């Protein structure tokens, strides 16, 4: 949706489930993206719990989890959403005078707009929703309601199983062949697939070291670091500024992705582009690990036309540094803006290889997969 178009913004506000005050100091370049004051959103939504008769509690729960940041990561968010939709379908009964197909599709659409209000959709979620809607639309009319519901739930289960869980296993098998003894592997942030690869390679008995690169404001790498240390991998931890310093020792870079676009651009956590660029400058191979359901036919040249803006207070406030935090009361100052980007676009020339469940492909083959294997959705 275009957030610089005032008419559309007003219309969507009328339909909104809960109140979201817009941020006061918006960066001009990002006027086309939504930015809200994050402080009051969660309490507002929680207070509306008893008023939402039209909202299924499972969907409400997922929305709150997104808003609070408890569920993060493309796969986790997608699975949470699909499970919530399974519950919705199980509890669904067609109201009199309406067809299952149209009514259910409308219900799903309204739930999706609620989830978008909580947090903008990731591309993996968008693909999953499209799959869902196409399955509903393809239901044969001869099925009874219970049979239709069972078929839909079955489809969701198969989607999660094939496209996410099994796909991850295949990716891990492929990627483990790229880890040799004596390697120093670098990863950025926290990607569940990369974590699985590292643990699997460690179980196979390969001797390697891991470098975990982290950045503000979320410090996602710390959680990954803790889990890797618990399993006995030897790790080095550093900040993204020091990536040029540490890149001398690194032999391979493994990165996760939120999505891979049709022009080969990788859309992932902000900072991935910096890491890939430095790795390219030092001639270190960069491997992106991404399931095929995250591929998208969109194209994007830079990180500005489409992105997600996070909480600007996260930038203003530095935990544990009171000398710097005197900035906090300045969030309302006219000349000062804080920019908290969530994603960035890594150009395809920095990526050596993409490991997917369809095999290990170069970035230029992504549109081929999008074109050839999308038909699979139609054939199920």
């Amino acid at each position, binding site marked *: 949706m275009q957030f610089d178009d005032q008419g559309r913004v007003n219309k969507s506000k009328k339909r909104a489930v809960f109140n979201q005050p817009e941020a006061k100091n918006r*960066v001009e*370049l990002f006027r086309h993206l939504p930015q809200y004051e994050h402080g009051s959103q969660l309490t507002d939504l929680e207070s509306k719990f008893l008023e939402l008769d039209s909202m299924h509690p499972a969907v409400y729960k997922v929305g709150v989890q997104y808003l609070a940041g408890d569920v993060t990561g493309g796969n986790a968010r997608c699975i949470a959403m699909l499970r919530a939709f399974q519950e919705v379908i199980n509890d669904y009964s067609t109201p009199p005078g309406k067809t299952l197909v149209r009514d259910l599709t409308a219900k799903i659409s309204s739930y999706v707009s609620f989830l978008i209000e909580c947090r903008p959709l990731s591309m993996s979620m968008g693909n999953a929703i499209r799959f869902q809607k196409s399955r509903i639309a393809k239901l044969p009319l001869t099925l009874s309601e219970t049979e239709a519901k069972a078929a839909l739930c079955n489809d969701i289960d198969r989607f999660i199983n094939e496209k996410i869980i099994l796909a991850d296993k295949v990716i891990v098998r492929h990627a483990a062949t790229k880890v040799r003894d004596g390697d120093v592997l670098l990863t950025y942030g926290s990607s569940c697939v990369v974590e699985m690869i590292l643990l699997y390679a460690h179980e196979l008995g390969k001797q390697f070291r891991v470098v975990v690169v*982290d*950045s*503000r*404001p979320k410090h996602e790498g*710390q959680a990954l*670091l*803790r889990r890797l*240390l618990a399993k*006995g*991998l*030897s*790790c*080095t*931890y*550093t*900040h*993204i*500024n*020091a*990536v*040029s*310093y*540490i890149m*001398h020792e690194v032999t391979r870079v493994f990165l996760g992705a939120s999505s891979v676009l049709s022009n080969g651009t990788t859309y992932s956590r*902000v*900072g991935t*582009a*910096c890491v890939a*660029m*430095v790795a390219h*400058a030092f001639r270190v191979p960069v491997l992106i690990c991404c399931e095929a359901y995250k591929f998208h036919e969109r194209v994007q040249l*830079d*990180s*500005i036309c489409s*992105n997600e803006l996070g909480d600007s207070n996260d*930038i*203003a406030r*530095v935990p*544990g*540094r009171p000398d*710097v935090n*005197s*900035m906090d009361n*300045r969030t309302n*100052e006219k*000349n*000062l*803006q*804080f*920019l*908290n*980007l969530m994603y*960035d*676009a890594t150009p395809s020339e920095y990526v050596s290889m993409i490991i997917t469940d369809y095999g290990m492909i170069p970035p230029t083959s992504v549109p081929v997969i999008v074109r050839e294997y999308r038909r699979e959705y139609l054939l199920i």
Partner: protein
Amino acid sequence: MPDTQVLVNDFLNKLKKRKIEGSQATARQTAELLRSVISQQRVPYTNQAGALIDAVKAVGEQLIAANPVELAVGNIVRRVLHIIREEDLSLTTAAIGGLNLSAVSDDENDDDRDGDSTLSAAAVAAAARSTLRPPSLQTLLEDTPVSAAVPQTSSSGGDSEGKTADKSSRSRKLKHDVIEAVNELIQDIVTCHEQIAEQAVEHIHQNEVILTLGSSRTVLEFLFAAKEKKRSFRVFVAEGAPRYQGHLLAKELVARGLQTTLITDSAVFAMISRVNMVIVGAHAVMANGGVIAPVGMNLVALAAQKHAVPFVVLAGSHKLCPLYPHNPEVLLNELRSPSELLDFGEFSDCMDFGSGSGSPLLHVVNPAFDYVPPKLVSLFITDTGGHNPSYMYRLIADYYSADDLVVQRRATAGN
């Protein structure tokens, strides 16, 4: 001198404990300390320059060893040594000029002239053998310190009366000149910001978007000067973790009415496509044009090169170091405390030495500096004007002598 020793020890302590922040403050205090060392140094009748040089080298060696990463200390020591040599040379040439004039005035008698000109030739040869000339094989093979050769040979020629009067006035004059020149040096260090800021209006146009990382006083003054001249521009400031100096810079810019946006360092690549120019400060500039800068600068420089955005480095001349960097990431870098990155409390259980080989599983790396190679820098703006990175080695000849690259006292007894 007991006074200077106390001052020197005090300064050494401050350097070792990293109490002095910033190369400008370090440079100024080093220059002031060396000025007191020189003024309190008792110079012998002959070979004043040699004595001063040895005194400065003795102190300078200790200062450089106290904080080898703070290159400004070494720079100022070498500048002072160069000043001593220069002043000595100018005094010697003045003295020789006096001898030459007295020789030329007798032009009736050819023999006399020949004799006098031979004398002046000897004096000229003596001057040529002084430390000011680049080291020739002759000087390198001589065992005695070269600076000792100068006054002795020059005292062998010319009128002895005129010479003694000459020498005493020379000794007073040398120290006086050196101290004046060191005062000028201190003045240059203190006013380097203004000289650089004067060039701001040539480089910043209207509606420009500028990116910077961390905080540098030179950059601040530069941007203020452009704002004074009514150029309107916006600034993106990358916060420069883990010191977060970018927050302080943003505060100052906003106080002066500049549109500022604060971004994280990870967003630099995302934002740089919309930036017109990157302006940053440096910790030190090496002789090959490479830059030692706060950590994260290499990231910005690579991103700027990829998007063809000019990368401009502002540096005062006290930051120019005559050394060429070899493995600068390791040798010219300092690793800071891991607690700036990880909270010890949360990760203390991971730091135990429980694994088989006895070494901890977790290493935390927190370097303070970054090296930017010269090919990524578009322009250096110093107080003497704008320069290409490939030109920086020539500026060394203006400020430093070739003999001073290794600041070490020669271990000879003849003094």
